[in-house]
């Protein structure tokens, strides 16, 4: 009845070894030190050439935009990217490819890339992926989430039940296995311990204890799976607030290496209960990409022409624009 066990033929980009991960986590600092720093410093200190990068949130929702912009400005080379729900984040980072600055993205574990959901495909991200200069393997959103979960559990793999029978499986490095108890065929997905994770949260204290509101997507596991973790937050809060209600902590300080306060840090994405996405700006970005010369002008203005994220916010309409997006988040302008 059942076919022989198969292996996918895609390459594996991240070391799944639980023992080697333990060796790393053995050395990770555990003291409650002040980790407040600028986004510029966090990226310079924690992201190196050739590393594996994973970005939290869900595409343009609770997106650590400021770090994505800063990565493009500092331009580390040959990164491997976890393409998990990667919409605007992939679009920002793709500015480091085919723009005369070398190759920022060299490899991608692709579950969702190139597209911005219903807004359409990103022409520049397409150019990058269709040029053949970025290697890729295929995944699904949940299988990448399970890879982070395996790593968060300190395991080398986990079994799951999708991707079986498809080309998505064939272009992945996954293997089929048989359950030793039930005899059921399963997919074994390798753990993914990213070198660097980047997550935007609502509130954090200076040690890195974090709270979010709304859906957590894969960030509970991503925070624990990442060897190094950069957190940006809408608001810094006192440690007393964390201790006053520890049930609300999603990420504990000992997972975190840098805390950066970036108000409106998910712009132009949505931040639940704070501000809605700036659809106009996202559409401008997509439109500019259609023409390569226009696109160069666009990123020169919005990414390379500013020194930090607050300048980008200013350039994109500043506080009045952000106040409008807050009203939209609270549905105050319905029917207008």
């Amino acid at each position, binding site marked *: *009845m059942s076919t022989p066990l198969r292996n996918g033929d895609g390459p594996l980009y991240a070391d799944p070894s639980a023992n080697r991960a333990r060796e790393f986590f053995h050395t990770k600092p555990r003291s409650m030190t002040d980790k407040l720093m600028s986004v510029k410093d966090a990226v310079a200190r924690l992201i190196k050439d050739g590393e594996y990068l994973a970005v939290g949130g869900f595409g343009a929702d609770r997106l650590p935009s400021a770090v994505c912009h800063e990565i493009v400005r500092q331009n580390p080379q040959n990164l491997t990217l976890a393409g998990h729900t990667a919409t605007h984040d992939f679009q920002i980072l793709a500015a480091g490819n085919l723009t005369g600055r070398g190759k920022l993205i060299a490899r991608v574990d692709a579950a969702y890339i190139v597209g911005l959901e219903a807004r359409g495909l990103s022409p520049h991200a397409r150019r990058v992926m269709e040029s053949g200069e970025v290697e890729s393997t295929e995944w699904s959103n949940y299988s990448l989430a399970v890879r982070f979960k395996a790593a968060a559990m300190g395991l080398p793999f986990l079994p799951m039940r999708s991707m079986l029978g498809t080309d998505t499986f064939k272009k992945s490095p996954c293997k089929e296995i048989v359950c030793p108890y039930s005899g059921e065929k399963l997919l074994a997905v390798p753990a993914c311990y990213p070198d660097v994770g980047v997550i935007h949260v609502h509130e954090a204290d200076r040690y890195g204890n974090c709270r979010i509101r709304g859906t957590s997507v894969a960030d509970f596991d991503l925070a624990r799976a990442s060897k190094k973790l950069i957190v940006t937050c809408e608001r810094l809060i006192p440690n007393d607030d964390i201790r006053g209600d520890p049930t609300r902590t999603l990420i504990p300080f000992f997972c975190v290496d840098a805390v950066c306060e970036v108000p409106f840090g998910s712009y132009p994405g949505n931040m639940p209960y704070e501000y809605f996405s700036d659809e106009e700006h996202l559409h401008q970005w997509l439109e500019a990409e259609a023409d390569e010369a226009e696109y160069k002008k666009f990123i020169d203005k919005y990414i390379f022409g500013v020194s930090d994220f607050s300048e980008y916010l200013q350039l994109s309409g500043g506080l009045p624009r952000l106040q409008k997006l807050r009203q939209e988040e609270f549905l105050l302008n319905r029917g207008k």
Partner: protein
Amino acid sequence: MSATYNPMELMICCAARLLENGRTVAVGTGAPCAAAMLAQRTHAPDLVVFFESGGVGPQLPTMPISVGDSRTFYRGIMATSMADVMETCQRGMMDYTFLGGAQIDAFGNLNSTMIGKDYKKPKIRLPGSGGANDLASFCWRILVLTNHDKRRFVEKVDFLTTPGYLTGPGAREAAGLAPGTGPYRVITDLAIMGYHDQTKRMEVLSLHPGVTMEQVQSNTGFAITAHGQLATTLAPTESELRILREEVDPHRYIIGRA
């Protein structure tokens, strides 16, 4: 009596009618979300809507733009993780899901990864599976809402991103996918299709008013037959159209696309 409506409005009404009350459905944005909202406002007030990003049971105030935006858990019963939603599906608690793609074949296999022959240098790179492969593997009934044309309904998909019935009867089970799951309905601007019990190939169940079988065949890239006596799809009722236009999609984001 017959109200005027456009093809998108008809498709959304057909999809909504398939969603039974007291069931669970995993949706994305766009037409599927509109179908779920319409079902909730007509025959299925207790339909529980899930989004793969973690939103559960929202009282959707407007159409979400992103599968992860804050509308997807607005006044919901839970804002959780992607793993929690997908594991609810993997446990066997998700009755329906809606999927789409650039290509679909006779067995309901979907391509949303690439157009072309060379994976390393695709002619068009598309987003990939997203959550589609997971939802199609786990949910009991897969529904597809799409326009009907030959570029989309193909003999062979360029890349099999998301499993339908794979190569035919028994193939899902042999691959290790959960028994009893699989493609259920395809709703297009021409017809409603299901899958033959034995062959697992797509077949026409009902033609939309004014559409002929020849029209369906000439817009389909594989041989397609009718299931027994062909029915005519019921047109949207006045009340379905009113709710769809006034409550579900007042800005005509979706129904204005037809």
